């Protein structure tokens, strides 16, 4: 009888130990799964938070290059600056291996990522376009994003004039400044007119102190008095403007007489 009682007690202990073993097995399996989930590199559709900073950096790089090129610099400045930025980003990314690839657009009207169009129709455009690919491989996730970086400064000029005495003319211009197609502010204006209204030879006269009214919405009214060689000479005006990013745009326009 005694032996039977002892056997029953043992069976209870075995059951407890068995349940503990099962619990430990369950726990170790749960921990293993959670650790695997932590270490596995997951493909994520969302962009790396650092990508927005790199995109901003590339945008600033393009603005700097366009500012340089529009003010007389060489077009290869864009590629040189982009390479400089890429080198710094690639060598200072500690959380992930970042691969940045920026390609200046080579499609009409862009050449080596730059398009400068300062024509005589009253519209001037200084633009740069770069395609950017960012790839970051980290221990916990891999991110990939593609961006199109377009920096465009534009000036639109319309004008008319009224004849004063002799060859003197009162000229009124309306200028609109745009950044990426949106109204923007200008830093300064320089206004010229053609002495005899003909571009051969070019005899531009700088207007000493034109009256400039800033409407605050990217629109400006400019007025000045000009004196051409003859009263019948066409009124050919050239407006040069730097926007707040110091990107230069120029537009030439032939004013109509009213």
């Amino acid at each position, binding site marked *: 009888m005694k032996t039977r009682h002892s056997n029953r007690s043992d069976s209870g202990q075995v059951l*407890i130990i068995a*349940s503990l073993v099962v619990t430990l097995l369950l726990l170790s399996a749960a921990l293993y799964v959670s650790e695997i989930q932590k270490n596995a590199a997951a493909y994520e559709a969302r962009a790396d938070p650092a990508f927005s900073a*790199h995109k901003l950096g590339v945008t*600033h790089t393009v*603005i700097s290059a366009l500012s340089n090129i529009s003010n007389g610099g060489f077009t290869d400045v864009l590629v040189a600056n982009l390479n*400089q*930025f890429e080198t*710094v*980003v690639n060598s200072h990314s*500690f959380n992930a291996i970042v691969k940045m690839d920026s390609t200046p657009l080579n499609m009409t009207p862009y050449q080596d990522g730059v398009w400068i169009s300062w024509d005589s129709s009253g519209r001037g455009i200084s633009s740069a376009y770069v395609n950017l690919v960012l790839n970051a491989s980290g221990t916990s996730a891999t991110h990939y994003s593609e961006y199109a970086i377009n920096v465009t400064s534009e000036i639109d000029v319309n004008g008319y004039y009224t004849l004063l005495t002799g060859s003197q003319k009162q000229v009124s211009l309306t200028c609109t400044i745009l950044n990426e197609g949106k109204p923007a502010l200008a830093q300064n204006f320089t206004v010229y007119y053609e002495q005899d209204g003909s571009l051969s030879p070019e005899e531009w006269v700088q207007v000493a102190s034109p009256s400039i009214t800033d409407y605050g919405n990217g629109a400006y009214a400019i007025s000045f008095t000009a004196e051409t060689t003859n009263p019948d000479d066409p009124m050919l005006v050239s407006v040069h403007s730097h926007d707040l990013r110091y990107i230069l745009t120029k537009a030439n326009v032939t004013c109509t007489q009213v």
Partner: protein
Amino acid sequence: MRLLKDNKGQIRIIEAFFASILLLSSLTLIPAVQEHSSDSTDILSSTAHNILMSLDRDGHLASLIGNESWINLKSCIQSSLSPMVWFNLTIFDENMTRINDIPITSGNAVNDRIVAVDYVCASTSSNYAVYIIRLQLAEVD
């Protein structure tokens, strides 16, 4: 009598079952505590990143560095942070040579858990330059 002996065994099994549930539930608390501490680090590094990005959005950050306006830069960072957060800002050029000749900090660190964020900043001026900005943040205990 026989039934009672059978119940004893069942109760032990139930006890063991409850004990294992207790073990499991206590273990589930451990990752929650770890997550809390990593959340605090994530918030600080996200704050550091956001401050630098908002200052850099219109090229203001590079302009302040280019003009060596360290006092203005300190004011900008200070006004963006809670007074309960310590900060230290260091500016390097692309060769990792320190540029700021005076410390841009809110004092001595009072916490060992310091979060550091490196930010690459490009200037918008035609005189192009790239800076590496290291912003260190820590919560004041």
